[in-house]
């Protein structure tokens, strides 16, 4: 992995995007052409003082970070007063079916992004996003809302449900239970946010 991505954030992101384009062409035979590539959503002023949210992959045809699930995630974040954040999908290349092997391959870009945005801690949305940081699986129903991992330097990783879980409504699922889970998880995360992010 090349960490010498220039000196400014813009240069680093530009180099990262260039590398991802080459990677997509080599591994997935996907040519971006003149299309824009979306790596992260956030404000540059928050670099070094934010949380990084690793979410499910972007929908192939939808506008980046504007589909139903991202809107719901932004709603959750504003509800819990989390304003300084960066949002990145666990898989960056447009693809129909994203497997865990794909996410593992793409994990090096997520890792580089962690180096660029320098978060205070990381929030993983969904069970598959775990493969962006670990080679093993965590059971979401057992470990949601908890700290599931830590880097050697003490960067914490929290796990919670992705917004699709709340948006998908079926007859046998109790919405009040989902609301309870959402409150439980995001209260833990927002408390940690208040402690670490200034």
């Amino acid at each position, binding site marked *: *992995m*090349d*960490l*010498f991505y*220039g*000196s*400014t*954030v*813009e240069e*680093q992101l530009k180099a990262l995007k260039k590398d991802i384009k080459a990677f997509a062409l080599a591994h997935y035979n996907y040519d971006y052409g003149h299309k824009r590539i979306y790596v992260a959503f956030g404000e*540059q*002023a928050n*670099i*070094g003082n934010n949380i990084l949210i690793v979410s499910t992959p972007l929908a192939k045809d939808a506008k980046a970070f504007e589909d139903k699930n991202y809107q719901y995630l932004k709603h959750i974040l504003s509800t819990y007063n989390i304003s300084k954040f960066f949002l990145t999908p666990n898989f960056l290349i447009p693809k129909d079916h994203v497997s865990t092997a794909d996410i593992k391959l793409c*994990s*090096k870009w997520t*890792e*580089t992004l*962690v*180096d*660029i945005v320098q978060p205070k801690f990381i929030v993983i949305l969904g069970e598959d996003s775990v493969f962006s*940081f*670990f*080679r*093993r*699986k*965590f*059971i979401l129903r*057992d*470990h949601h809302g*908890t*700290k*599931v*991992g*830590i*880097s*050697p*330097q003490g*960067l914490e*990783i929290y796990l919670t449900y992705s917004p699709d879980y709340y948006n998908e409504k079926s007859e046998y699922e109790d919405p009040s239970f989902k609301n309870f889970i959402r409150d439980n998880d995001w209260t833990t995360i927002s408390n940690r946010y208040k402690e670490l992010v200034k």
Partner: protein
Amino acid sequence: MPTFNFRDVNKSKYKNIDHWTPLVEHTVAFISYDGEYPNLCSGTLRVMVDDDIYIFPRRALGSGGTCGAGNNWEATHGPWYITQWPNDPIFQDEKVRKAVTDVVNTSVRQGCCGGCA
């Protein structure tokens, strides 16, 4: 605009992703074992690790007991040990191996059953 200093790649905080430490233990659960008298030790074991079901090779269990002829034909019981593991990297973890062995010992009645005597 925030600026970055050039970093030495050897001093990078996130050089190797495998250095991230999980704080959560694996979840191991017993599913089934179809060995029974007179071949208690030659069944097929199914175990669930982190919500994935793994099928062990046949005769993967070894009985800690013995059977033989002394004054009478008799069989002694002992804890199970596992001789063959599924071909998956998750079983290279010593903690997982110990957890699977423990769950087998609490779920399958101990041999030897004496069927081979």
